[in-house]
């Protein structure tokens, strides 16, 4: 078999093994298979290069004078003309195969990076809230309307998920007559108890400040300001979207409960946040 043939076989095996590595990873990984494929992917490429050097490159042995160390050092004799350059370029096919093997190997070696984190899936579209979840404060106490003074604000969580990063919610009680919520949200704020996500829709900071004078929620990070009475629409700062509102009702025992999760994703924007429904990655 000619040298070219051997090299092609080596490179082709390497490409196949690299693709195999990617496939094995995607299917869940298997150490023995991965080890064997890694050996073929690297070995095929390595063997091809060795054969290439030995058989295709013009291998005239050259001599270089060993200049005495110590000073003054002579410059080493220049090597002769670059070897085999013309012959290498003639082998277009082999070069393409070589580039392909390099690319496939790079992909095979890079893919374990995906182990660093889960796929986002629907994670960004849901929070710890669900229909029927009781509203509890930071100490886990379920809340009744009577627990809240007018214009008081509290950070609340779904029962059992105290400290939930995406479920953190601001519960504010205002005079029901003052509320001017967007259409379709009638009944979301029983007796003036209105709840908004505490995660800023700009860069995700907790919206930690409440200015009772004009019923404004302020984010200390970038000064986004939201109007509590009008569905938390932004009135100043960089935030574009209102803080999502949590639909509330009062259950038979008089406790505040959520009637469902937030109607849209909470927190900072991402490119497919408007893609609703259960489909998607």
């Amino acid at each position, binding site marked *: 078999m000619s040298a070219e043939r051997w090299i092609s076989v080596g490179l082709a095996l390497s490409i196949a093994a690299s693709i195999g590595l990617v496939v094995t990873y995607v299917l869940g990984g298997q150490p023995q298979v991965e080890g064997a494929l890694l050996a073929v992917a690297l070995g095929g490429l390595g063997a091809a290069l060795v054969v290439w050097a030995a058989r295709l490159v013009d291998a005239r042995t050259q001599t270089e004078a060993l200049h*005495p*160390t*110590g*000073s*003054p*050092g002579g410059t080493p004799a220049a090597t002769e003309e670059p070897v085999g350059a013309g012959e290498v370029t003639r082998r277009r096919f082999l070069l393409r195969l070589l580039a392909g093997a390099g690319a496939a190997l790079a992909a095979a070696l890079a893919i374990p*990076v*995906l182990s*660093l*984190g*889960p*796929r*986002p899936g629907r*994670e*960004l579209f849901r929070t710890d809230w669900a229909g029927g979840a009781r509203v509890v404060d*930071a100490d886990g106490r379920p809340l009744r309307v009577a627990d809240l003074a007018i214009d008081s604000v509290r*950070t609340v969580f779904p029962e059992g998920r105290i*400290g*939930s*990063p*995406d479920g*953190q919610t601001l519960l504010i009680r205002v005079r029901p007559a003052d509320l001017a919520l967007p259409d379709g949200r009638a009944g979301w704020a029983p007796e003036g108890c209105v709840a908004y996500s*505490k995660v800023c829709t*700009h*860069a*995700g*900071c*907790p919206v*930690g*400040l409440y200015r009772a004078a004009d019923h404004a929620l302020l*984010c*200390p*990070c*970038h*000064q986004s*300001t939201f109007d509590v009475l009008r569905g938390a629409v*932004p009135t*100043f*700062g*960089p*935030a*574009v*979207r209102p803080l999502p509102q949590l639909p509330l009702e009062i259950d038979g025992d008089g406790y505040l409960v959520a009637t469902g999760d937030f109607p849209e994703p909470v*927190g*900072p*924007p*991402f*490119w*497919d*946040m*408007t*893609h609703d429904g259960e489909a998607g990655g």
Partner: protein
Amino acid sequence: MIRWVDDRLGLASFARSGLRKVFPDHWSFLLGEVALFCFVVLLVTGIFLTLFYVPDGTPVIYEGPYPPLQGQQVSAAYESVMKLSFEVRAGLVMRQVHHWAALVFLAAITVHILRVFFTGAFRRPREINWLVGIGLLTLALAMGITGYSLPDDLLSGTGLRILYSVVLGIPFLGPYLAFLLFGGEFPTETIVSRLFVFHIMLLPALLIGGILVHLAILWRQKHSQWPGPGRTEHNVVGKPFWPSQVLKSTGLMLLTAAVLGLMGGLLQINPIWTYGPFEATTVSAPAQPDWYVGWLDGALRLFPRFELTVLGVTLADTFIAGVLIPGFAFTIMALWPFIEARVNGDRAAHQLLQRPRDAPLRSAVGVAGLTFFVTLTLAAGNDVAANIFRVPVETLTDLLRLAVVVAPPVAGVVTWRVCRELQRRDVERGTNGERGNDGEAGPVRLRRNDAGGFEEVD
């Protein structure tokens, strides 16, 4: 002994020419050295800190000697930094020297870049080293951001949250990149261990490699110099590497370390015990990042309420303000040597530096860019400033929004006019921009000497 080594390695001639290498002398050439020596201090103190820091986000109960936090849930990382600050002997001073050194490191790099920019030192043949330098600045910023976040305190945690949000906002890739980087939806327990690997392994390796390339290119190309008697485009006039430059630089290194030591000992920095541990539902107000991140945070604060959704693809304002604008600014900065060469058609090699007035366009662009960065940095403190000056933060923010658009071009035009005026005066005085031996601007008088050459007379 030296003979024995030289017989085997043959380095004497290289060393001899190296030791005699000539370095031009000017205070502004030492700014890069200050950055280098800050890095040395960062390495030394950083190694000490690494021996005590625990890169672990697992929650533990704090039971150390700082009463206000006793019994509170903190991460193991936060606990280890508390221990370093309160219980490890010399731990706090090492931490504070490290933090101050990082702040001065970025400052020295910034001033060094400004020096190189405004004197035209980036022109051919030094474009490659300019690019290496911008790369080093980027790495230094990444070092700062990753290191700042390691203590896992409330303030740095807020910074990480904003970083997560900016990454999340990148079109198409954002959610995937954010989940890969953080190991899931923010907040995660794994993030501090990842930042640790970046901060003490990947980034320093790249930074050290980059610094070596930066210095090797400087060594190979030789340092640029100010115009002056005997200085031409084809020589280097200055002091030899050994002994003057070596002694001077060693002295500067010790002086830099001395100042950083003083700062680390006397000036409190990043008191994480007053910030408290990171909690997902808490935020401190006001919240300012370290100074070199200020312009990025300022851009997020000033950017108007704007978001675009086209065909179901949302272009987040955090992406425009946090990625596109800084990326654009850095690209312009990196490509400036090539932009300038194209604009003025000057592709010749330059060994002699220019005064800012001698390149009005460059100086105008530089001052405009600097004004842009400074305005954004000021914007990162808009809430603090609003408190101090007793004005509504809304008013101040609107003013800064106006300023970030208007101030850079105005500053640029003014700079251009000032440069032209200074040039005109130089011509009137007949100095033509050159300086005499004594460093004072003024006409240089030459006299033919006996050997047929010229010499300067006072």
